[in-house]
């Protein structure tokens, strides 16, 4: 959307894709704790330090109590598949070479309104297209794994992927 820049808030930097060409998240001031967490194998959710409510994606103010006092807490990373799609070309490389692959939305078991977009894989080294899409079902239990990527400048990134629980 053209409005992306307008609600990007504390956009810091897009450091570019991984060595393989996968799109990496542009880390903003609000989401930094999340991507620091994935690098050490933790799934972190933003929490309001005033009323305790969780929110995702991260943002400056709690929509429940309007506090800007915010932190994060680690969650277990167990969830269920809420929905999924199977993209086919035209796509960008390297995704088009992997198509058809899966993209899933996962609902966290311990916080049912917190959801993540991700991919169902067989393990932390898995590719987006290794699970037969016809075998995926809404409601399947999954748990988080973290796959590490490296950018051309040598910086590391880790993305949350999901495996069958």
């Amino acid at each position, binding site marked *: *959307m*053209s*409005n*992306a*820049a*307008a*609600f*990007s*808030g504390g*956009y810091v930097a*897009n450091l570019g*894709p991984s060595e393989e060409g*996968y*799109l*990496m*998240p*542009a*880390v*903003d001031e*609000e*989401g930094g704790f999340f991507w620091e967490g994935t690098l050490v194998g933790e799934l972190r959710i933003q929490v309001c330090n005033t009323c305790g409510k969780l929110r*995702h*994606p991260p943002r400056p103010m709690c*929509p429940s109590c309007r506090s800007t006092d915010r932190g994060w807490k680690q969650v277990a990373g167990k969830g269920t598949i*809420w*929905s*999924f*799609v*199977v*993209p*086919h070309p035209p*796509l*960008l490389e390297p*995704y088009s070479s*992997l198509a*058809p*692959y899966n*993209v899933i*939305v996962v609902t966290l078991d311990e916080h049912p*309104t*917190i*959801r*993540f*977009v*991700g*991919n169902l894989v067989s393990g932390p080294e898995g590719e*987006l297209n290794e699970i037969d*899409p016809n075998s995926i079902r*809404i409601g399947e239990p999954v748990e988080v794994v973290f796959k590490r990527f490296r950018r051309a400048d040598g910086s590391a990134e880790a*993305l949350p992927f999901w495996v069958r629980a």
Partner: protein
Amino acid sequence: MSPAVGFQDATAIAGIAQTAFSKHLEPTEAELACTVIVDACADAGIDPSEINALCSYTMEATEEVDIVRNIGCGEITFFSQVGYGGGAGCGVVGQAAMAVATGQAEVAVAWRSRKRGSGPRPWTSTSVQLRVPGAWTRPFGMLRPVDEIAMLTRRYMHEYGATRDHLANVAMAVRKHANMNPAAIMHDKPMSREDYMASRWVSEPLCLFDNCLETDGALACVIVSAERARDLRHPPVYVHAFAQGLPPEHQTMVNFFNDDPLTGPAWACARRLWANAAFGPQDVNVAQIYDAFSPLILLSLEGYGFCKRGEAGPMTEDGNLEWEKGSLPVNTAGGGLSEAYVHGFNLINEGVRQMRGTSTAQVDGAETCLVTSGEGVPTSALLLRR
């Protein structure tokens, strides 16, 4: 919620125009915009020098200053742009109508000019897409709008038992109407259920024919007071009611991060729209519903109250959305799926033609028309009447 003060039927759409629709048009977006605005003024019988309000989309490439310097306007006293891509269209016309209804301007023009057919697709820009919320979705290969809407569609089908046959009913109804409209890109291309089912996947569960066209084209309309419209060339098409809608905890296009992702902006918009209107969904004779993707029509039928939640699939059966026997003919010129995709502005002009009685799929005796903008993004809607 009480009706907007002084707005109901206070203004009317007095002129409309469109360019040809094509995969590729030679003129620039600026030239198309200027040409279509001048043509809409001619349709109304108003000189372009009288325009004093200009309204369009934030995504529109041609700014007001360039329109004014090209078409020879006088002093412009109201200008506004509405955001969120396909959610904007009815908001653009509605804000123009508000400017006229409140006396900020006398002659307002709303327009959209876009070379989407021959120009770049926004999703291929990786510098824009990786910002929030793209950072949470794009690295995982959810690259395009179709992937985002397909995600909601799969969940919708799972919760309510809707099927691909229901999506096919939508696509076939709209195609049938395009086949009646010589201006539609798909005018000469009938589509059977077999054609639909055999088309290639784009993002399962959505196939090629669940996706809108990629079009070069431009459209405009002219809004004046109801009183003035009665003295002009065409019968007035009254702007009966207008609303915009942005619900709590909404995330544009990737509305997965709240309690109930399957009730999107259409629901918020509809509550205000019907509060502003002297009639309800049961009184709507024909509807132009934003259809960048076929499932958006199912969600919108529910959001605007034509059926209960989960009942839009069955509502598509038995030709119910088709001219001329259906209870609610939709997108009677072919919509975004089969006429042209110009961010939904062609739905507005078709709504005007239905109220004038000049549609190529004219609903007999139609007196009221709902026009909606995109579901899945902050949206807007209009009620037009004769």
